[in-house]
């Protein structure tokens, strides 16, 4: 049997992130980046409300899922594209891109825990 690649791990993360992004990504960007900041149809909830959301277990789950999976999705795409462009050796690109996604996921988790319950 040919030597197994570890690609499936990152491919499944990429797939999960891609699916979430495809299903709700456009709406999220519209809400957080266009509508809420300019009070078009929705306005920003106040600090207390958002904090309560981030403290709620479901809120934490949602934030972790969206942020981490989006980062992992982009990391896989960036890794493969940089490899296509022959920017550097494959192993270096993998470590750099997955490393950033991993770091971002860890920071997200830490922030969510630090924010408290």
């Amino acid at each position, binding site marked *: 049997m040919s030597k197994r690649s570890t690609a499936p791990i990152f491919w499944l993360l990429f*797939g999960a*992130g*891609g*699916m979430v*992004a*495809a*299903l*709700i*990504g*456009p*709406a*999220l*960007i*519209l*809400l*957080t*980046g*266009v*509508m*809420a*900041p*300019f009070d078009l*149809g*929705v*306005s*920003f909830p106040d*600090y207390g409300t*958002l*904090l309560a959301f*981030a403290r709620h277990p479901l809120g934490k789950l949602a*934030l972790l899922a*969206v*942020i*981490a*999976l*989006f*980062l992992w*999705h*982009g*990391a*896989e*795409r*960036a890794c*493969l*594209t940089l490899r*296509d*462009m*022959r920017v550097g050796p494959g192993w270096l690109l993998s470590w750099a891109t997955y490393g950033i*996604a991993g770091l*971002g996921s860890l*920071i*997200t988790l830490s*922030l*969510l825990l*630090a*924010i408290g319950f």
Partner: protein
Amino acid sequence: MSEYRPFHRPQRPFWWARAPYRGYSLRELSGVGVALYGAVLLAGLACLWRGPAAFASYRAWLATPGSLLLHLLLLAAMLLHMVTWFQTLPKTMPKLIIGGVAVPQRRITALGLATALLCCAALLGAAIGAAS
């Protein structure tokens, strides 16, 4: 018997920037846009953790033209991602056989896009409803 000396033509280094691969490269870059938006959200979460003052400045930044431009670009990337995602999705599945025939991939793509539009509409509707 003539000489056997196969000639190897190296792959063109900028193949990804030329037709017919440009669409593919754009699709991949839209995926990077997804991560960039994730980073923007992460920044917001960090400001939320830091406190009301930090979060107020994040909100102020969101209302700047620079942020709006960025979000519009990210929105374009996200939409390209969405469309190309459901175009590629049927390729990752075994043939779906219903009633003795394979379901055309276009139909799976259309179903996926419809589901996505529904989810987006639901999310927008819920947000607008909660705000009013």
